[in-house]
């Protein structure tokens, strides 16, 4: 812990966190992976940005429509005394909350990178987390589904990427504030996945995924097996059409010794039908394996032991694998969310007064958030696993559904042991493998769809923070910078890239066909 710092991109919310270098613009009737956007042309977008800038109309993407608009709205500078603001028009579209002003950017603001999909003061609707109504000194939280009936003086909006927006409707025509607020409450919290903007986005498909491997095809897994030189494992087609497990990919790498029918039989005993699957291996044969817990209704561990025995046989020396129970040893998604809320309070202070109040106790407040503890314990666990693999032991990561901490630890272990993943392309491939293909529930964890029993939890941010810590300790080991990590997290809140939109490959597959 003493070694760890807070990722400063998150230290203060300057309101300008969205520093993107994204050129990804095209989409298909199917969805577009976030990864691999580098060499795309963005001229058309920039041109349209300039044209619409003077008109106070939001710049719209293909398929985007304006739902409500409020004129003469004041936008306050983030973490300010909220006395002065920029004047402009605020609108809600089916994609974003957009503020357009004719006022010039300050010198400070113009030094920052811009997002090509969003204007300087825009946020994607799926990024919006909490909406408050300003009532003089106090503020009242507004819940999705509620309608505001009275006058709305102003809004205070907290985003999932810690951006804070504060608006005042003091100078707006009567009723504008209310209309806008109700539209926002309705559209920012869709109750069905099909209501997300990605389904309305109309852009021709543009394939620019050069070297990033998506781990969708047989080929992808075969190549990975070959690259790692891991013997004792084979490819199984048992999950074709997601018949075995909806949250696993269609191709699975399983112990050589096990037959498909045995695997199918065993899967029924595991949560989410997720028996042990291979995700990576070292040259000398030690493998990294992920699996779910047995169903709570199952009391004897025979099926699990049979599977583990097969894992053992896949080791060239028949070494006993090391089983790490991640749900016991690491924080749960709920713990992570609680910690994140505390951290956000610290990183996104409401105003300048709160900023300086917190400043007096910043370190103990940071400590109480436990965020760095979580980051540190994930790294420690990954080191433990990596050390076992270096001793040529196979490591089996086990956790509830095997889709949260398993993603974090499995990717960290590989980053620690295999330089392949530390390049830009390698890192994207790793995310594609451990998070996308092996079914991290992005939609649930990022709360893309509103439910009353939210299971929101920024597990992915914990992972990115761990990588940031590694970059601090090994500044020359990574091809990418912290800006890239920030961009990834911000992009996870943009409802266009299919990478971070779905709970599993099956959902992604269905949506695109």
């Amino acid at each position: 812990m003493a070694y760890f710092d807070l990722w400063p991109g998150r230290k203060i919310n300057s309101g300008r966190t969205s520093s993107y270098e994204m050129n990804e613009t095209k989409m298909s009737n199917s969805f577009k992976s976030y990864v691999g956007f580098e060499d795309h042309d963005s001229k058309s977008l920039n041109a349209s940005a300039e044209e619409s800038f003077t008109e106070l109309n939001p710049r719209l993407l293909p398929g985007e429509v304006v739902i409500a608009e409020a004129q003469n709205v004041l936008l306050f500078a983030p973490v300010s005394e909220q006395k002065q603001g920029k004047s402009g028009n605020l609108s809600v579209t089916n994609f974003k909350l957009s503020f357009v002003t004719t006022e010039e950017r300050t010198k400070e603001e113009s030094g920052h990178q811009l997002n090509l999909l969003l204007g300087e003061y825009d946020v994607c609707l799926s990024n919006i987390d909490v909406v408050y109504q300003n009532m003089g000194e106090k503020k009242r939280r507004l819940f999705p589904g509620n309608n505001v009936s009275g006058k709305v003086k102003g809004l205070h909006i907290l985003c999932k990427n810690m951006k804070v927006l504060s608006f005042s409707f003091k100078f707006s025509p009567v009723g504008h504030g209310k209309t806008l607020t109700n539209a926002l409450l309705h559209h920012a919290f869709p109750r069905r996945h099909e209501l997300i903007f990605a389904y309305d986005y109309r852009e021709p498909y543009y394939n620019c995924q050069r070297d990033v491997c998506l781990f969708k095809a047989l080929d992808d897994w075969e190549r990975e097996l070959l690259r790692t030189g891991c013997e004792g494992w084979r490819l199984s087609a048992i999950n074709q059409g997601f018949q075995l497990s909806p949250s696993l990919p269609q191709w699975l790498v399983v112990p050589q010794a096990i037959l498909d029918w045995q695997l199918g039989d065993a899967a029924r005993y595991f949560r989410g039908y997720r028996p042990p699957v291979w995700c990576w291996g070292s040259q000398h044969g030690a493998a990294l394996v992920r699996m779910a817990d047995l169903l709570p209704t199952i009391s004897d561990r025979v099926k699990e032991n049979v599977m583990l025995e097969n894992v053992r046989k896949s080791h060239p020396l028949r070494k006993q694998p090391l089983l790490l129970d991640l749900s016991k040893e690491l924080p749960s998604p709920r713990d992570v969310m609680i910690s994140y809320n505390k951290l956000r309070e610290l990183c996104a202070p409401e105003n300048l007064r709160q900023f300086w109040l917190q400043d007096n106790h910043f370190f103990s407040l940071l400590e109480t958030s436990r965020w760095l503890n979580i980051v540190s314990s994930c790294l420690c666990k990954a080191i433990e696993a990596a050390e076992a693999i270096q001793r040529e032991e196979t490591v089996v990561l086990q956790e509830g559904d095997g889709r949260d901490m398993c993603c974090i630890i499995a990717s960290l272990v590989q980053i620690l042991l295999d330089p392949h993943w530390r390049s830009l392309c390698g890192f994207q491939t790793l995310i594609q493998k451990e998070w996308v293909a092996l079914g991290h529930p992005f939609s649930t964890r990022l709360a893309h769809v509103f439910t009353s029993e939210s299971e929101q939890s920024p597990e992915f941010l914990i992972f990115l923070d761990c990588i940031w810590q590694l970059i601090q300790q090994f500044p020359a080991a990574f091809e990418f910078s912290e800006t890239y990590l920030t961009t990834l997290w911000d992009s996870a809140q943009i409802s266009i890239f299919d990478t971070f939109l779905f709970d599993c490959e099956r959902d992604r597959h269905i949506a695109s066909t």
Partner: protein
Amino acid sequence: TNVSEPGPPSRPDDPPLLPGEKVQGVAREVTYLCPYSGPARGVLSVTNYKLHFRSMDRDTPYVVDVPLGVVSRIEKVGGQSSRGENSYGIEVFCKDMRNLRFAHKQENHSRRNVFEKLQQYAFPLSHKLPLFAFEYTEIFQDNGWTVHEPIAELKRMGVPNDMWKISKINENYEICDSYPTILAVPAQATDDDLRAVAAFRSRGRIPVLSWIHPESQATITRCSQPLVGVSGKRSREDERYIQLIMDANAQSHKMFIMDSCSSANAIANKAKGGGYESEDAYQNAELVFLDIHNIHVMRESLRKLKELCFPNIEESRWLSGVESTYWLKHIKCILAGAVRIVDKVENHKTSVLVHCSDGWDRTAQLTALAMLMLDPYYRTIKGFEVLIEKEWLSFGHKFQQRIGHGDDHHSDADRSPVFLQFIDCVYQITTQFPNAFEFNDHFLITILDHLYSCRFGTFLFNSDRERAAEGVKQKTVSLWSFINSHLDVYRNPLYWAPPTYQQVLVPIASVRHITLWKGHYCRWNPSMRPQDPIYQRTRELLVLKEQLERQVEECRREQQSRAARNMATPPRLASPIHS
């Protein structure tokens, strides 16, 4: 490239010796109790400069090498009756955030001799011995004593000019014995004025020029507290003199007096004959209190920090532990004070006068930091050396008292990490502006190491007067001679020299931006060290940078010569009509 005088022939067991260094005592079969890697057995040597331990029981010898100047206290641990392994020996408490423990064998009586030698050479002044700097004879190419030429430095800032003159009134330290001989004062002030002002300022430390803005002529001046006392005494001359400083800046009809302590402390100072300027007496001057704590609070804060960082770090309560030392809060407060000065001078074109009680501790921190933020010259290696020579050494920061060189009164209430805090603040600014400084943090750490080491004369004694009387420049080597003779290891490869980079730096004085300087405070703990070979990369980057700069220069020259060749026959005579 160092030319060294040949020393006495060395024996095989001897540690590596500096010119002028001699072995004074050796103990064999001593165990160094390393808090991180466990006990190591070997030979402990004491010289007139350092303590040197070399292990004999490990494949790669473990070496501990500590200049004795760093030692603040030495204690015997255990007696003849002590049982238990390693319970009998010596504990050495250091000024640089670490303690060392050695275990001796009772039977071979090696402890007594080593303990005595350590006492003598760690505290030479208490034993009527010279400080090592006076015995050190290494010769360097560069002469660091010429780095700061006061008149040249004033000239660099355009002084003398219409409003400011150079005064030699203190040539014999008559006005003030803790000031330098050369002072820059308002041009209008007569010698009689200066004498009268000196009578009204604590220890004669009159307001003098530290820095002048090249465009607006707004100034930073420094002094000690006025001798107001409980009765609220006034001095017409002092008031008029402050008015002269204000008038020397045509851009503003106002001036700020920044008192670095809290108003409560300033009021308390009245009881001791001091105090602060009342705004009634000093018209158009606005008094601001910066609320920086005194030397005793700072010493206590560092003590707590040492407890936290050495030897072992308690992981689970690390952050709240750092907070509870208040060290970073003090750093923030000092930085915030300097930022206020910069804001007044740069943005409001208003002159600022800075003082605390005596004007040699907090005042030096504030003026030096403000100057570092305002003037890119001080961010170069040479400029930073000038800044230390000028604001700290020549204006009489009491290094001898605050550090306690060669003195065994380890609990002396005059000791305080004032200069360390300044360097920490500099470190904080470098982290916020990584491209603005010519030097890297190894440079800062080297300065701190030799702040204590007593190898160089630079930080010895309390004032220019004392240093002149002791012949420091003639008899000792300057730290800057050493540093300037291998500049490459101190260079920051990411440095952007002005005018490419912004002139004025305004760091954010928030704890969110201030970090504990682990590379310094936690450096003895191997698990806290950076894992990357940063120094190696720094060197590689510097070589690369040099190569690229050379290429640019070549291209430029080639282009010029091509342009010259392509020009039509130039006119033989320059004519005013053509120009």
